[in-house]
């Protein structure tokens, strides 16, 4: 595709005010789909989780999943929304091969949740409140694979394959009001907002929130308003921006692209655009047209959802502490400086840290192990840190270091054993025989041997050149295969050498 002209970001901000809007789709982690009892499962064999309802076979009818309603209400509440007393599903009619019924069962003018807000904090400390217009329920589409032509691309494909396993998976679509006043922070606002949504759905436990598996997907709307004007610019809708970094990049890119186009006297087409993760650009999709006449009408196969106020309050009582508040509390409790705390947050280790500390580990030690050695091993194995060891195991390991049973070096070996499934840290210490040797007998024997074999060193120590002891200490540690406390060894070496230190 032709490369678009981009305007320098600072110049773009001088000339235009960016206006944003986001539609975030959250896949709920219910056991079954939104409208049928097929498993809601990622990664099953193609078309194994399908039935007459989610395949859109003639005669199939939908049945609403109660858990999906509860999750949607809880999510709405967590976003500060009002919960509708009367809410309905509607059919959104359009033809597409991944949409089995050729309509999406969604909500139109009667969404389950509306009028919310979410305050996010940027890295600068700036707080931005994003107004939520609505959060509504709908079902996901199946998955298309484009074959032939340029690998995997829809353009130029010879044919496509459809797997309806994802068809009918419950989604909540969260739609913001226009976000104005973001100014140069606009891209960061996008990233931080999506991160906040992700954090909330995770804390609620309503979604697996794995962006790489499409559990959270973002459409970013961007328009520019010329400085001094009060007329909104035409917006573009960049679809499926599916990582936090991409949200930031895509917003920034659209600001620069639109600014260049407008400045050159061009006009913005109201269209959907595609984000290309690899090249970092957006490209034009289908222009908005009257083909977008979705002919919404109330879904006649489903009856209205009218949650009682008692039910809503019952669900409100199950809400966890808001993630932002929790972070503030934890950072204060642990006494971490921003950098240390960010490190934990960015590595997605808040939960395990909290559990490790609750199990008795000092905060700094927990941080050191989780963001250090464990993260390194997890990275190398390509898995998440919390899948390797449990917070209880890490706390036990730290305890062994604190009480002098293990040195850091030994502890790393114990950790390996724990990960290998050899048991608890104490069991690994026992079975591998890794504890620090605390009995002086073997140490003294080793020291005497080392001193005997290095008489020149012994002479130096006796002359008061204490630093010469390093060579003997090294030899002793080697002989003890690391299982000695280096400080104690030093103490004993000097003593045996008869130093007057």
């Amino acid at each position, binding site marked *: 595709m032709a490369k678009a002209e981009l305007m320098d970001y600072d110049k773009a901000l001088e000339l235009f005010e960016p206006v944003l809007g986001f539609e975030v789709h959250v896949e709920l982690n*219910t*056991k*079954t789909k939104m409208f*049928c*009892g*097929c*498993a809601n499962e990622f990664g099953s*064999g*193609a*078309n*194994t*989780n*399908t*039935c*007459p309802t989610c*395949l859109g*076979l003639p005669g199939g009818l939908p*049945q*609403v*999943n*109660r*858990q*999906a*309603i509860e999750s949607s209400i809880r999510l709405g509440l967590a976003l500060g929304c009002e919960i509708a007393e009367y809410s309905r599903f509607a059919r959104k009619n*359009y*033809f*597409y*091969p991944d*949409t089995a019924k050729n309509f999406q069962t969604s909500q139109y003018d009667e969404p389950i949740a509306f009028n919310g807000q979410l305050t996010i904090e940027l890295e600068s400390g700036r707080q931005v409140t994003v107004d939520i217009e609505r959060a509504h329920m709908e079902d996901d589409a199946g998955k*298309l*694979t*484009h*074959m032939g032509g340029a690998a995997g691309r*829809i*353009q130029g*494909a*010879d*044919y*496509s*394959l*459809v*797997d*309806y396993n994802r068809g009918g998976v419950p989604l909540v679509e969260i739609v913001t009001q226009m976000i104005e006043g973001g100014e140069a922070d606009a891209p960061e606002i996008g990233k931080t907002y999506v991160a906040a949504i992700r954090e909330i759905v995770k804390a609620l436990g309503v979604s697996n929130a794995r962006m790489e598996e499409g559990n959270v997907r973002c459409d970013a709307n961007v328009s520019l308003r010329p400085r001094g004007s009060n007329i909104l610019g035409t917006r573009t809708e960049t*679809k499926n921006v599916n990582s936090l970094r991409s949200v930031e990049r895509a917003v920034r890119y659209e600001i620069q692209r639109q600014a260049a186009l407008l400045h050159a006297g061009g006009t913005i087409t109201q269209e*959907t655009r*595609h984000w290309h993760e690899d090249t970092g650009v957006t490209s034009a*999709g*289908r222009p908005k047209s*009257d*083909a977008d*006449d979705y*002919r919404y009408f*109330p879904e*006649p196969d*489903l*009856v*209205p*959802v*009218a*949650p009682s106020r008692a039910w809503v309050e019952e669900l409100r009582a199950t809400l966890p502490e808001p993630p932002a508040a929790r972070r503030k509390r934890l950072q204060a409790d642990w006494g971490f400086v921003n950098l240390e705390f960010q490190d934990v947050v960015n590595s997605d280790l808040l939960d395990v840290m909290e559990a490790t500390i609750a199990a008795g580990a000092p905060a700094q030690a927990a941080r050191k192990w989780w963001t250090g050695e464990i993260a390194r091993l997890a990275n190398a194995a390509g898995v998440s840190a919390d899948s390797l060891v449990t917070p209880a195991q890490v706390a036990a390991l730290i305890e062994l270091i604190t009480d002098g049973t293990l040195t850091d070096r030994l502890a790393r070996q114990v950790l390996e054993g724990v990960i290998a499934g050899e048991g608890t840290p104490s069991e690994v210490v026992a079975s591998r025989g890794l504890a620090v040797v605390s009995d002086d007998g073997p140490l003294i024997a080793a020291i005497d041997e080392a001193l005997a074999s290095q008489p020149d060193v012994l002479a130096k120590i006796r002359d008061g050149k204490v630093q010469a002891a390093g060579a003997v200490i090294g030899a002793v540690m080697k002989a003890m295969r690391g299982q000695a406390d280096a400080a104690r060894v030093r103490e004993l070496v000097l003593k045996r050498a008869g130093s007057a230190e």
Partner: protein
Amino acid sequence: MSEITAEQVAHLANLARIDLSSAEIDRLTIELGQIVDSVAKVAEVATPDVPATSHPMPLTNVFRDDVVVPSLTVDQALSGAPDRAGDKFRVPAILDEE
């Protein structure tokens, strides 16, 4: 008389994904005009004070428990497919993403 035009019918046919011939469009333009003229009388009594009824029986909150029930087998799911490749439904090239 209603003002249904052939262009309008062609547009509706496109929305409804039916490849109507121009003869069909012409005939439907006339028929649709007549039918619409006739049924438009609903507006006479549909005053703002009358609530709409979308379902004949006024039920609310009909839910299913979140319990997995067996799905079709892959062969059952694909048994009616006009075309398939492996365990997936095969469709001709798609012009552009929705």
